[in-house]
């Protein structure tokens, strides 16, 4: 089954805003195309302002597409004509900042079960009402009694685990990870990365991993797209990107990363 | 700069338009409209109709509103029921007295409010901070009229230091009016004795009126100063060796003033409102007293006239505040 899970073709998004009366245009996403195969970890790398978060928003139907098309499992889910039905439940997202991604007023159980409430059609019948909240909370390394507590009683790492459990409750096919570990300490980041890898095999997930941290992308991603000011300047396998980068921007990006051992040999 | 003024003026027009609608509604639509008051006890239907016709209340609402608007435009605030005089003239006559009282109260409120607010913030949780905060919470809790009464009781009735009513002792003749401000006119006239007397008359009403706004300003300046002092640039300044006093005045205070100016602008507006009460208690012949007399006499057009004038003054003050903030805060000039 090598049919692509997600295909993005010719994606464009422009934001216009007024500043001192003058209309400014920010062409955030310029004609981006890529495809993600089932079971793959596809990385999108870029600095701030490179358009990676805008692409995530477009994928999650949070922003409207100016031109281009996004198809999921062969079905068009977003294009400029905007009356497509979005496969809620099949695509889920985990955001960067664990302090803001969980509603402080809700208990962990309510947070994790929230996505189930709005499923419709095929997805609803597929899941029925078997809510495996307990199985999921344990799968992400927390305990059942945590379910009745509120977010402020948890550390950053633990909250990110809850966010991941919430994303998996609807048994999605694709999980968009928007800088999931950037706000975490190294040791906590390692725990979350291991968790993501084990969950991928256990639930047969496909990840779109968005980050500015080259180290994490190098470790996790099978294929990597490099973004610079809204353009996809290079798209290749992990091997090629990190060992044989072709585009000058990719080279500059890689050389700027203060990696552990590269410098010390030369010292 | 011009773009901002244009935007603000457009806003001003919209708000004034809204103000006219609200005052119109209050004056002509709500149950207690003037005809019932004017017609006296259990009026016959004819008298009611004739009065309604006289005030044009029988025309359809939009037409009434248009005539109301055109009157407003020509500065005609209707005629007072009690004195049959145009409200506008009476307002103009009383306005300087109120303005003088409010300005003095405003100066008192700022002159003491800002330094006390800064002191309370810089010396947070110290003894002086608690005293200032207690003094300030007292200020926002004291009923304006009661504060005035207590002052009269102590400084007039018991100690006899200060006069309790009017702008000038009756035996002294009021100065030939140039600016309408007794303080300035007596100075122009060179009448030193009258000037002292005017000041003595001003002390209690200005303090009674100013104390409440002084408290508001202290609380606002203290909280925005605390915010400014907790910013990173203050710590950067300390780490770069800049003195505490220098940082408090040149760095923190400047940033703290921006949010405070809006509150200070608001407090000038509420001083105009408070004048209604203070002028009544101290028998101060200004617009405020004119309004309380109108309330007693059910003089509806006068009350509405006062409301429109105050709203207009308030909107202009807010425009001035915006311009001041614009000049202080570079980010608004982006």
């Amino acid at each position, binding site marked *: 089954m090598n049919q692509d899970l997600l295909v993005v073709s010719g994606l464009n998004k422009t934001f216009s805003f007024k500043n001192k009366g003058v209309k400014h245009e920010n062409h955030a996403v310029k004609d981006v195309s890529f495809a993600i195969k089932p079971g793959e970890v596809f990385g999108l790398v870029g600095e701030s302002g490179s358009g990676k978060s805008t692409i995530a928003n477009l994928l999650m139907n949070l922003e409207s597409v100016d031109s281009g098309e996004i198809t999921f499992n062969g079905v068009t889910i977003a294009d400029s004509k905007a009356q497509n039905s979005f496969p809620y439940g099949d695509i889920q997202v985990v955001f960067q900042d664990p302090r803001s991604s969980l509603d402080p007023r809700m208990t962990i159980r309510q947070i994790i079960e929230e996505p189930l409430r709005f499923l419709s059609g095929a997805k609803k019948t597929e899941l029925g009402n078997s809510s495996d909240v307990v199985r999921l909370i344990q799968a992400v390394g927390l305990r059942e009694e945590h379910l009745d507590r509120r977010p402020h009683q948890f550390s950053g790492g633990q909250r990110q685990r809850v966010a991941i459990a919430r994303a998996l409750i609807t048994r999605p096919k694709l999980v968009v990870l928007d800088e999931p570990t950037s706000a975490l*300490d190294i040791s*906590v980041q390692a725990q979350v990365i291991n968790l993501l890898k084990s969950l991928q095999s256990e639930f047969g997930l496909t990840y779109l991993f968005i980050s500015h941290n080259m180290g994490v992308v190098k470790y996790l991603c099978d294929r990597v797209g490099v973004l610079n000011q809204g353009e996809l300047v290079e798209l290749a396998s992990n091997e090629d990107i990190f060992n044989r980068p072709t585009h000058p921007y990719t080279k500059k990006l890689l050389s700027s*990363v*203060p990696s*552990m051992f590269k410098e010390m040999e030369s010292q | 700069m011009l773009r901002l003024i244009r935007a603000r003026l457009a806003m001003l027009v919209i708000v004034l338009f809204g103000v006219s609608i609200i005052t119109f509604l209050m004056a002509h639509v709500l149950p207690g409209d003037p005809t019932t008051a004017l017609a006296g006890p259990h009026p016959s239907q004819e008298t009611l109709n004739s009065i309604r016709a006289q005030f044009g209340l029988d025309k359809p609402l939009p037409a009434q509103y248009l005539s109301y608007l055109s009157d407003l435009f020509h500065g005609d605030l209707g005629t007072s029921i009690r004195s049959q005089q145009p409200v506008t003239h009476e307002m103009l006559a009383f306005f300087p007295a109120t303005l003088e009282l409010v300005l003095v109260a405003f100066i008192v409120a700022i002159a003491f409010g800002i330094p006390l607010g800064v002191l309370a913030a810089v010396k947070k*949780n110290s003894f002086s901070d608690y005293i200032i905060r207690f003094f300030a919470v007292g200020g926002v809790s004291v009923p304006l009229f009661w504060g005035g009464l207590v002052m009269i009781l102590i400084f007039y009735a018991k100690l006899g230091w200060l006069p309790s009513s009017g702008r000038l002792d009756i035996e002294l003749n009021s100065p030939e009016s140039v600016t309408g401000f007794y303080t300035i006119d007596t100075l122009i006239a060179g009448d030193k004795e009258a000037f002292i007397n005017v000041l003595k008359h001003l002390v209690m009403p200005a303090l009674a009126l100013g104390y409440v706004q002084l408290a508001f300003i202290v609380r606002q300046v203290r909280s925005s100063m605390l915010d400014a002092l907790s910013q990173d640039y203050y*710590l*950067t300044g300390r780490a*770069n060796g800049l003195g505490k006093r220098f940082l408090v005045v040149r760095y923190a205070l400047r940033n703290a003033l921006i949010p405070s100016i809006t509150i200070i602008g608001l407090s000038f507006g509420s001083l105009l409102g408070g004048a209604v009460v203070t002028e009544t208690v101290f028998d101060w012949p200004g617009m405020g007293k004119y309004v309380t007399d109108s309330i007693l006499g059910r003089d509806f057009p006068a009350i509405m006239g006062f409301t429109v004038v105050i709203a207009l003054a308030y909107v202009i003050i807010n425009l001035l505040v915006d311009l001041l903030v614009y000049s202080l805060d570079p980010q608004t000039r982006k």
Partner: protein
Amino acid sequence: MSELVLDIKDLSLSFLTSGTPVSILKSVELQIAAGEIVGLVGESGSGKSVTALAISKLLPTQITTFSSGSIYFNGMDILTSSEESVAQLRGKKIGFVFQEPMTALNPTMTIGKQLFHVIRRHSDLSKEQAQAKVRAALEEVLIAKPEIVENQYPFQLSGGMRQRVVIAMAMSANPALLIADEPTTALDVTVQAEILNLIGKLAKVHGTAVLLISHDLGVIANTCSKVTVLYAGEVVETGKVSDVLRTPLHPYTQALVKSLPDIAARGSSLETIAGEFPDLRKRPEGCIYAPRCPKKFDKCSESPVLMKVDNEHSVACWAQGSRSSS
């Protein structure tokens, strides 16, 4: 070894948070010689920023109590010196660069004016000379067209530019020690590389001692010659960067290095640290890392002391101590 600019000995301090004293640092040791760039690495809650602020006495006095130790700066103990004498050092002898360039500068004052104030404070230059020095300081931190930037406000500059201005301020009086607390964490990778190179160059040119604080081992490896690793307010390991990061001795440092994805093989799973961050309201007896340490054994109930393994590499761990010669 050349004369020490900074010599922190057995520094312990605690904060009074909602009534209960919380022990933040316990017997911290740190030495920096002139011209040396020393890294201080640790995760959140390790006390690395508190150590930095303690050096120039910028900690909030009402809630801070120094329970032991001393901080010698050019031979003068900061802890016992008067506020005036320490105030003389700030900005003149000790420069500071903070993490958040977005908020480090006064938003309602031009860049030039803020630099002008710092320069005038630490020199007896006339107004004109100080104004000229402002432009020179901006040029030294490689800001193009300083005559324009001088009259701009902080919100008109990018994060990287603002951090350069903060560095220019910190270095304007040619301090003996520059403390950079996570100077590039909020910046993009490419901008981070430029700022780190700038700090390294300035330190070499002026012979300034630099204390670089970071949670990113890559940044430390790339910029510093020596490093000290902090865990929950205690020094667990210190030494040359190549020794400490290439052959870490303390289990915590080992775990940190192994949990880094950049160098881990793709297939393998990353090493993680079990357990939770300790509750510093009652600092446990014995080794602070013991509850989470795979090499724990009975001796660990006794607080370990920083032991020299070779002339420049020390570690606070009994498992290591018994193996080495000392």
